[in-house]
């Protein structure tokens, strides 16, 4: 996903002279390619996130489209005021590429985990928040970033994740993709997912189908603006809504879904179960997959949460 994203920046730069690239301090091969492929329009600026966001704002004010790339937690938490004031208040077309969103940096501990990035980016007016599920979808998405009017936060996953997206389903920023649907369009369970949680949810849905439980999987690659229309259409008549995200349950996709449901379906909201990371800093290291297992975000745990939810509903 990361190479797909960065390669796309180089490709877009060849097509459009407005594209610029700013890295902070990562990946020597990228530095070399920048100089070869985007001479005069790409810079490795050092570990100075506040500055590079302000600098990207200045470039955007001069008509450029800067792609700013560094570790997800640093491009969101470290320079939050610059993102809010320089990018969002001015509504500038800067693209923040957050490397290792979620639990990717598991062995490096809580300083490097971006588990509240969606929440804090989502809270900012004018910000668009996108978390695609694989490298193919990343390519389709990146093509649309050139002319999107305001700032975008792009959450990158680990890389080399299995490809589950399908070209025939298309991609439009702000439009949810139904990745799986029961025959006739009626499922008892609606799972709303984002990022690589979608991949896990799809696998969970296979297991549940074997139990006779049909699940619709709605991949909400764009968490903001949320595709409320698609959500409401599918939320009606289902017995259970489950949100799945590699993110704290505070303020992420689950919260966005509940916000939308409360506004649109007062008094008629089906039961909602949010699966995500609890409101606590990570205590373990290991791998992304191991932490996702601890947090109940792997397919067997997701499937079990759905069964439990339906059982409670029946009771």
């Amino acid at each position: 996903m990361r190479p797909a994203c960065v390669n796309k920046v180089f490709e877009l730069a060849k097509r459009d002279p407005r594209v610029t690239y700013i890295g902070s301090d990562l990946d020597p091969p990228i530095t070399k390619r920048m100089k070869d492929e985007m001479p005069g329009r790409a810079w490795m600026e050092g570990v100075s996130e506040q500055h590079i966001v302000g600098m990207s704002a200045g470039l955007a004010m001069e008509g450029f489209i800067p792609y700013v790339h560094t570790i997800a937690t640093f491009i969101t938490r470290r320079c939050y005021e610059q993102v809010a004031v320089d990018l969002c208040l001015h509504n500038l077309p800067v693209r923040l590429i957050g490397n290792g969103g979620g639990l990717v940096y598991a062995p490096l501990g809580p300083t490097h985990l971006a588990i509240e990035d969606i929440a804090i980016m989502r809270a900012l007016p004018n910000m668009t928040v996108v978390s695609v599920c694989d490298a193919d979808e990343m390519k389709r998405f990146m093509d649309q970033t050139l002319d999107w009017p305001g700032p975008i936060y792009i959450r990158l996953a680990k890389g080399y994740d299995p490809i589950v997206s399908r070209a025939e389903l298309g991609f439009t920023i702000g439009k949810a993709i139904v990745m799986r649907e029961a025959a006739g369009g009626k499922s008892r369970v609606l799972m709303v997912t984002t990022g690589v949680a979608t991949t896990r949810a799809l696998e969970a849905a296979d297991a549940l189908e074997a139990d006779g439980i049909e699940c619709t999987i709605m991949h909400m690659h764009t968490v903001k603006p949320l595709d409320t229309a698609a959500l409401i259409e599918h939320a009606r008549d289902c017995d259970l809504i489950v949100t799945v995200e590699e993110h704290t349950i505070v303020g992420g996709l689950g919260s966005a879904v509940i916000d939308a449901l409360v506004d649109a379906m007062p008094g008629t909201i089906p039961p909602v179960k949010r699966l995500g990371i609890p409101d606590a800093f990570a205590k373990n290291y290991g791998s992304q997959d191991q932490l996702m297992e601890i947090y109940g975000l792997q397919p067997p745990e997701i499937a079990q949460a759905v069964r439990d939810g339906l059982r409670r509903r029946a009771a």
Partner: protein
Amino acid sequence: MANDVALSAHAPGQQLDKRSIELRRLVVRALDGGARGHIGSSLSLIEIMRVLYDDILRYRADTPDWEERDRCILSKGHGCIAQYVMLAEKGFFPHEVLDTFCRRDSILGGHPEAGKIPGIEASTGALGHGLPIGVGRAMGLRIKQSDACVFVITGDGEINEGSVWEAALSASKHRLSNLNWMIDYNKVQSAGPTEEILPLEPLADKCRAFGFAVAEVDGHDVEALRRLLRTVPVDRERPTAIICHTVKGKGLSFAENDANWHHKSSINKELVAQMYDALEAL
């Protein structure tokens, strides 16, 4: 260091001329309109903004986004009344708009906002944002092969912010000779003297060490400012830092060098009259 400009004769007690007094009267007019505002922080800036808009900057008031204009970013957004006064003087908006300062539907807030006010290049107020934005704009202008310049005016308390120094490193790395960083060094920040709150000295050495060509000037000496600003860039290979030695509250005898006059959230008619009287006495 070669290329640096020596401190011009600093005359703290020097008289303000008729135009500087009139501009200060316009500041009081805005303060009266809003019944509040950053008094000391605006008054130290008057001659800096006056010389920039009267003699140095290229702009078209009827076409604020004219591509060839110089970019003037007031990073110490709380000093905005000084810039509002000059924008009114130059016809970006009528003087009457000054009377609406901070009122509900005014375009003139307590900090300047781009997109609302013609001639404002960036929304500032949160400190330490102007220099990074200025670096980006200077880089963008260079790519476009424009000969327009960027002027960023920061405060002195403002440069407590680390983001300023991150941007200074970058400006130097990129040899942005089209970037001019002016520091309104009035030596008093919101809570007291800068030398007590967070000492900045030796400031000129710090700027030099960060790769800037440095000039120092009496920030109330109109002729010295004019002379100096006509020579920028001081060095064609480096960004320029201009340390403007100023007096907080300059022109109001009872407010000069006093942190209590940094900002007043309640300005009544009596105080307005006192301010006009003090200017009359100059």
